[in-house]
């Protein structure tokens, strides 16, 4: 029986690992309620709050866009970062490690599958939110916006891969950390309000935390591009794109190095196969 190696094996692995996530969209229609309706209720709360405060109309658009991007962050946190931990509990991690493929290919497959599935969710949130609240986007720079979005995703999923390696070692503690990261990251990345307002009102050290979350600059740049003239950005979109590109490269390399290191460490400390630790 012929078996492929190298790049072909890497690509086969990515495709195969992405498959369950892509397929899940068709086989579990309950996601429409839990992952579109529930986030929309959360988004609606902010929309009504801004309307009650007589905030500029663009804020409604900011919130809808933030709601869509929040879907990606939650996907990274719960379906990427903690996934290797769950795979360990189920016994899948052992099988990944003892196969000749690269764990990086497994993680990238997870990321691509997650990205595809989340894009459907995020698009649904954005479209439904836009229709309900009458948001108007300016599409004159859609190409640039698309580029910013894609680079943001690379950086975001790169961060997810780093977290995944860490959670592989932390186990149950990792799950608690993921839980405790959910809300602070939503706040620090300005998902529901302009980032510049946040940067002007929080201590400097927190702005550093905010800046390393790819969604922060990604969302800030997207808002500047899709609502031109209605928002003061932290930095010009081009600069934010460059920073995101740098983050993406650093995160991917760091994820690779960390994954190798964690795998070695996990083998020495018997954490790859022993469950509930």
């Amino acid at each position, binding site marked *: 029986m012929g078996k492929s190696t190298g790049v072909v094996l890497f690509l086969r692995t990515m495709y195969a690992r992405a498959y*369950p996530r892509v397929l899940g969209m068709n086989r579990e229609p309950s996601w429409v309620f839990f992952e579109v309706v529930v986030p929309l209720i959360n988004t609606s709360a902010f929309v009504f709050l801004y309307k009650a405060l007589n905030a500029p109309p663009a804020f409604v658009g900011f919130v809808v866009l933030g709601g869509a991007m929040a879907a990606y962050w939650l996907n990274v946190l719960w379906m990427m970062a903690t996934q290797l931990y769950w795979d360990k509990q189920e*016994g*899948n991690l052992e099988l990944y490690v003892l196969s000749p493929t690269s764990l990086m290919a497994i993680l990238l497959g997870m990321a691509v599958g997650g990205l595809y599935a989340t894009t459907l969710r995020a698009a649904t949130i954005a479209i439904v939110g836009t229709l309900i609240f009458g948001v108007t986007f300016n599409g004159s720079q859609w190409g640039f916006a698309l580029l910013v979005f894609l680079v943001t995703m690379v950086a975001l999923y790169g961060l997810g891969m780093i977290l995944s390696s860490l959670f592989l070692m932390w186990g149950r503690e990792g799950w608690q950390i993921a839980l405790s990261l959910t809300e602070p990251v939503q706040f620090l990345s300005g998902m529901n309000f302009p980032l510049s307002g946040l940067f002007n009102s929080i201590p400097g050290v927190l702005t550093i935390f905010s800046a390393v979350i790819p969604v922060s600059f990604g969302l800030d740049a997207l808002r500047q591009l899709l609502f031109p003239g209605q928002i003061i950005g932290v930095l010009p979109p081009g600069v934010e794109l460059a920073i995101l590109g740098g983050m993406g490269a650093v995160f991917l390399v760091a994820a690779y190095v960390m994954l190798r290191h964690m795998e070695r460490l996990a083998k020495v400390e018997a954490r790859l196969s022993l469950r509930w630790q």
Partner: protein
Amino acid sequence: MPHTTDALMHGSDQAEQQPAFVSGVQATQTPDARPLAIKTENVSRAYKLRRQKDSRGEKQKTLVALSGVNLEVYQGELFGLLGPNGAGKTTLIKILTTLLAPSGGTCYVDGLDVVRQAQEVRRRISMVSGGESSGYGILTVRENLWMFSQFYGVSWKDANERIAQMLKVVELESHTNARISGLSTGQRQRMNFCRGFITDPRVVFLDEPTLGLDINAARIVRHFTREWMQQNPGRTVLLTTHYMAEADELCDRIAIIDHGTVLACDTPANLKHLLQKQPVFEVNASGITERSIEALGHAPGVVRVIGEPEEGGSAYKLKFILEAEAAIGSVVNALTEQHGNIISLQKNEPTLEDVFVALVGRSLTAEDQDEG
């Protein structure tokens, strides 16, 4: 310099590496010219324990799971690893499958160092564990098997053909398109079994593969293993099992392991033959206690005695391994002294279970009951 398969050809010092058997009888092994599929040299593994204390209340820092394990498994062999819970069987398998680093010693699989050439080893092996819940419930049986085959680079055409063949063999054909979340334990284990063989491995590690399976499912798994070995003479299986009959039926050779050390290694027939000089008697007796059984162990000529209470009664089923047949007289006397009433007494042909008892000092059945 990495070892090659040729470099691991079995040498004449094999017999010297085997540990002494009960009463100083040496386990024998015929020198074999076949190349080795697995070789371990002085392998040890210790686990760091966190926040655990020993019986004296002192903090334990490490647990030795394996100590100086030397094993040689030939290509084409179905090799069994028998031992009670915590003996080190699974630890050894984890090391051989590159999931765990040994604390000391070296291991080779198909001539490759499992630490330094882990990636190459992984191309040649697969593992199936009992009670495994791997896979994704949202996928069908076929999709799950296909997904795992892709991690080995198997082409879609080959994978689909193999999946169809294997599912037929393990009588799971009708569930090909069923989601695995709806499978029974036995069906899921049969699917896992297929996963282990679909990638055409050279060495397969089966860790308690029939654990929790019903009789029919276990029969299918055993039948498949035997057939696969016959059809692929150069392939090797390392099997750990709790079931003595399974080991006896399937394995070409067996190593008995306890407390991280290999106590004996030979063919089932040779292991049993070693007990020919040490007759085995089974006695059903009433009126005795756990303490009496301990006392019976000190009777003249008794090598080992184990006792299990009979189900639903006050009698005990006692198994005696004696130095010689004549020692049965002293057993009867000792039983009388302990106020025991003999209900039945018979001499048995030694089984693998008896060999295990003779070496380890307790039966696997008793172990299971303790666990339960």
